[in-house]
């Protein structure tokens, strides 16, 4: 078991190095002129250009620059944003809670709706509910979420005026960000109506971001349950007269849960990609919108750093999922 853990963790190191090379290299190798990007000066004399090249360190060999970048990263220095002149890591720290809050709500929705729907569809296989759930899940799975978001805005914000169009809270509420999570901060502020406002801002973005994970989880739960329900031990449990609820809940579901948990973990990358689109539609001030804006402004310190941090987080979550999977399922360890 320990050697499995160590092997799996050791695999992370080359991947991390690769991630850092890609994050660093993509923009550095391929972009036209970093000095022009960084300084924002256009008609530069060659002398001024060379001076800036030296000042930013771009006249050094690329591998030296890479090593010094990595050296900085290891000390928590991801560079400074060109547009806002604040450290990339600080920006990430302020914006990440917004994305995390949104992602957690989306995931909660996906799990709370997706798992029961999947179980019920499997138990009542072929029923109208099963067909409805399977069909809906396929539609959700095929959904262009950026369009889905716009549609929801048209109906619920434009037509019914139930929910706000964008942002995290109404402008009339103003309080200090203590945790960065608007739901918690609005409660702590004690201002009347602030919490409701935060909730109403979260609803549509959570639905949009949760749609694909919801569909994936429902499909996965259904097929995992179908597989387990056909196993001998389930038949044994049934034939010895256990109530169906107990068979499904205790014997079947606990075993079907293994692939479902893995699926949930693997949705994290999906959520990050979805956050880019969702945050852009709802002007949600999180890291997805931050990355889009940085790409728009060619703020490449942010793009570099953001890419590196996000990929590292996704990789870390996948690692944890893998290790958890090995803990739950002993068959993996034996390999």
């Amino acid at each position, binding site marked *: 078991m320990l050697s499995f853990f160590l092997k799996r963790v050791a*695999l992370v190191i*080359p*991947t991390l190095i*690769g*991630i850092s090379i*890609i994050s660093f290299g*993509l*923009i550095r190798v*391929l*972009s036209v002129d970093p000095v022009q990007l960084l300084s924002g000066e256009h008609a530069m004399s060659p002398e001024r250009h060379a001076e800036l090249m030296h000042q930013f360190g771009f006249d050094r060999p690329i591998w030296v620059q890479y090593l010094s970048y990595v050296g900085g990263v290891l000390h928590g220095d991801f560079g400074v944003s060109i547009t806002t002149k604040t450290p990339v890591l600080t920006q990430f720290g302020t914006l990440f809670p917004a994305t995390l809050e949104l992602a957690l709500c989306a995931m909660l929705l996906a799990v709370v709706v997706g798992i029961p729907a999947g179980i019920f569809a499997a138990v009542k296989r072929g029923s109208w509910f099963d067909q409805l759930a399977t*069909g809906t899940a*396929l*539609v959700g*799975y*095929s*959904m*262009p979420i*950026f*369009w*889905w978001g*716009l*549609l929801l*805005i*048209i109906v619920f*914000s*434009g037509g019914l005026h139930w929910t706000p*169009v964008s942002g995290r809270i109404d402008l009339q509420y103003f309080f200090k960000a203590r945790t960065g999570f608007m739901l918690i901060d609005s409660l702590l502020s004690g201002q009347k109506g602030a919490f409701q406002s935060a909730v109403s801002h979260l609803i549509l973005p959570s639905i949009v971001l949760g749609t694909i994970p919801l569909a994936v989880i429902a499909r996965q739960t259904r097929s995992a349950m*179908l*597989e387990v329900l*056909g196993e001998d031990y389930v038949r044994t449990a049934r034939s010895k007269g256990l109530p169906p609820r107990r068979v499904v809940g205790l014997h079947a579901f606990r075993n079907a849960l293994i692939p479902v948990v893995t699926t949930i973990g693997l949705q994290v*990358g*999906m959520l*990050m*990609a*979805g956050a*880019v*689109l969702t945050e*852009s539609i709802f002007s949600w001030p999180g890291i997805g919108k931050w*990355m*889009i804006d940085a*790409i*728009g402004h*060619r703020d490449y310190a942010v*793009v570099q750093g953001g*890419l590196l941090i*996000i*990929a590292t987080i*996704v*990789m870390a979550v*996948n690692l944890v999922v893998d290790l958890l999977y090995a803990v739950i399922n002993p068959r993996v360890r034996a390999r």
Partner: protein
Amino acid sequence: MTDVQVPDAESAEEVALPAGGRFGPLGELWHDFARSRGAVLGLVVFLLLILMALLAPLVAPYDPTQQFQQNILVPPAWLPGGMAAFPLGTDAVGHDMLSRIMHGARYSLVIGFIVVTMSLVCGVVLGLLAGYFRGWVDVVVMRVMDIILSFPSLLLALVLVSVLGRGLFNAMIAIALVLQPHFARLTRAAVMAEKNREYVISARVAGAGHLRLIFLTILPNCLAPLIVQATLSFSNAILEAAALGFLGLGAQPPTPEWGTMLADARDLILRAWWVVTWPGLAILITVLAINLMGDGLRDALDPKLKRS
């Protein structure tokens, strides 16, 4: 895409349907595929979309970039203020929506086709090399694939496009690059499973070279999962290209690409719903049809699921 050898001879016996024996592997595949009503529906819709794409220049009422500046934001024909000349209405610069949607099908299908071809060819070759030779080739190839997979695909595609430059072609390259590891992984796993089977060993003993073994002996027997993956990637490619277009990094206006059309329509969502609704609906229907086909193909090609 459909002329494929079905590798699972055992399951053909097991199912023991007359179609399997009489019409050969293709007939059997069709038989299994047609058992799912959804899959057949998806296929029909997909064929209709191809037809629409092919015939768009002939049947679309107008040129997709022609602007009718007297008729801006005309609602669909059945609404008050609608005009029969513009059945689905017009957008903010007076483009006919129907013509643009029809022409958009050409873009999406071509995008899907090119992206899948690129990522399939690269991924399969890399996967074959990794799975066949193992050793350091395997380590290097699979590490690189892992690294690509640890980036959220849309984000990596976004950054790639911003580096390569906006535009449809660069968007396709970026999407192909992020989709290709899935093919490489699948191929590698399939090759490793097939490599030590007796038919491969006998071919080797008979003197077949590496290339012949890889491409003619092993590859045809790894096709089933690849076909399913190709179908899923086709719909993914369409979705991601539309997302890039929506974020302003894919096809550029006035190209009638569905995602790009949505980007143009963003400011109008509360004023002119039809400008937003049709392109998205077109994307959804296309992707849904392809996914329905993909599900059907998976069930037809996967002997394990076939039994259940």
